[in-house]
């Protein structure tokens, strides 16, 4: 049943996302054309500045808007009127939440990748200079590979964590009559609980770690091993919180559902 749920969640998210991507691509091309004209004709310098400003705002907004949109879909689909259909389907709550988590994550990551891609289109056009690509590749090669992988994984887990934390807030909030207000309150509470617990767990580890003390004293500054170790630890903590909030969401929607 998960595959069927995924089919409908992907379809529902793509109905809004694909037109947004197409419009953003057109804006990127338009920005590139106007900037090229501005290089040759001075009269285009003002429109060029204006459209470049809009373009940058749109690039930043695409992944953020996608994130907000997926949360709104979750709320509309499972807590508002559509919930009467979704919660009476013969599927487990785990499948319902997992489908939402997977589809939302995929769309947020795609939005993020498209934002970067459109930035290149806006600045360099659709034909990239091969020198530019090799320059980027050289930059990557200079940085530790494990570090790059850990950073990428951290971004991915952070996207999933933030979604699931908001799902848990909504699941807890829907138990009350004023569902939106309580969802916001639980969101603030869960965010602060996560922050405090992370610090409480991380601080003693840092104080007891001799390598970290050396790093602080400046004896071993460019140590990727140390940074990667802490990144890995932070990643492990994020996964732990994500799993905890995921289980909480499933349990609350299973045992304490309160559709108004």
């Amino acid at each position, binding site marked *: 049943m998960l595959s069927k749920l995924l089919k409908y969640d992907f379809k529902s998210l793509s109905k809004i996302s694909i037109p947004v991507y197409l419009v953003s691509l057109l804006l990127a091309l338009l920005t590139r054309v106007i900037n090229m004209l501005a290089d040759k004709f001075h009269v285009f310098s003002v429109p060029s500045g204006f459209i470049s400003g809009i373009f940058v705002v749109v690039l930043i907004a695409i992944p953020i808007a996608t994130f907000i949109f997926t949360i709104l879909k979750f709320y509309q689909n499972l807590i508002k009127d559509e919930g*009467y259909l979704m919660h009476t389907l013969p599927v*487990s709550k785990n499948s319902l939440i997992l489908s939402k988590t997977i589809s939302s994550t995929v769309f947020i990551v795609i939005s993020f990748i498209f934002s970067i891609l459109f930035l290149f289109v806006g600045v360099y056009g659709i034909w990239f200079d091969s020198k530019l690509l090799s320059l980027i590749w050289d930059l990557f090669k200079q940085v530790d590979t494990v570090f790059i992988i850990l950073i990428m994984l951290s971004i991915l887990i952070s996207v999933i964590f933030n979604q699931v934390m908001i799902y848990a807030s909504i699941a807890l909030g829907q138990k009350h009559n004023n569902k939106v207000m309580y969802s916001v309150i639980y969101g603030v509470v869960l965010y602060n609980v996560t922050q405090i617990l992370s610090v409480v767990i991380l601080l003693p580890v840092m104080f007891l770690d001799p390598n970290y003390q050396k790093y602080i004293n400046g004896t071993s500054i460019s140590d990727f091993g140390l940074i990667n170790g802490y990144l890995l630890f932070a990643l492990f903590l994020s996964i732990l919180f994500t799993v905890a909030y995921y289980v909480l969401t499933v349990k609350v929607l299973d045992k304490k559902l309160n559709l108004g």
Partner: protein
Amino acid sequence: MEFIEFKNLSKNFGPKEALKNINLKIEKGKIYGLLGPNGSGKTTMIKIINDLLQPTSGEILINGREPGIESKKIISFLPERTYLNMNMKVSELIQFFKDFYEDFDEKKAIQLLHKLKIKETDQLKNMSKGTKEKVQLVMVMSRKADLYILDEPIGGVDPASRDYILETILTNFNEGSSILISTHLISDIEKILDQVIFINQGKIVLNEDADTIRKKKKTTIDKLFREEFKC
């Protein structure tokens, strides 16, 4: 043999008691009328059967088990509100029901929709409220379910549409299955009921065979309801 059994079931919303110690059995093969004034607890009972609310105390058993995936396979539920995804076309909605309910009869659904002059290509968001309600009813009645639960199916529609809805219900429900209809518009549905359940202030105040009520009380169920719940 009972199909659904409420055992000492209560439901509170904060300090308010919505259902008080409900004991009730619903059998197969009968049409039940769950009748009561607004706020009497009808929808709360229905939501509990459909696993949309959990009881505060007591239990509900469907085929001997708590509500869950298995009960959702055999119960076809029409809520009192529109639960459709408005971005869908009729054809997508049909596919959705086909994908998730093994007992969904696609041919029957298309046939019923064509009678209403609704095409598969029609967008749900462009339909009137009444048409959306009819589409929803068609979807629910096109399942070969063991129990159809219809919450206020005629509440928001004109008298002509009420006749259509009642006819659709009666001619399309699966033989041997049960129907539980909740409403406060009793005169329109009393002729089709086998069993009448009156609920008031969260308590079952009457649960009797419809013909027995008429014989014993020498009145219609509508009149009896008006007397019972007179303000």
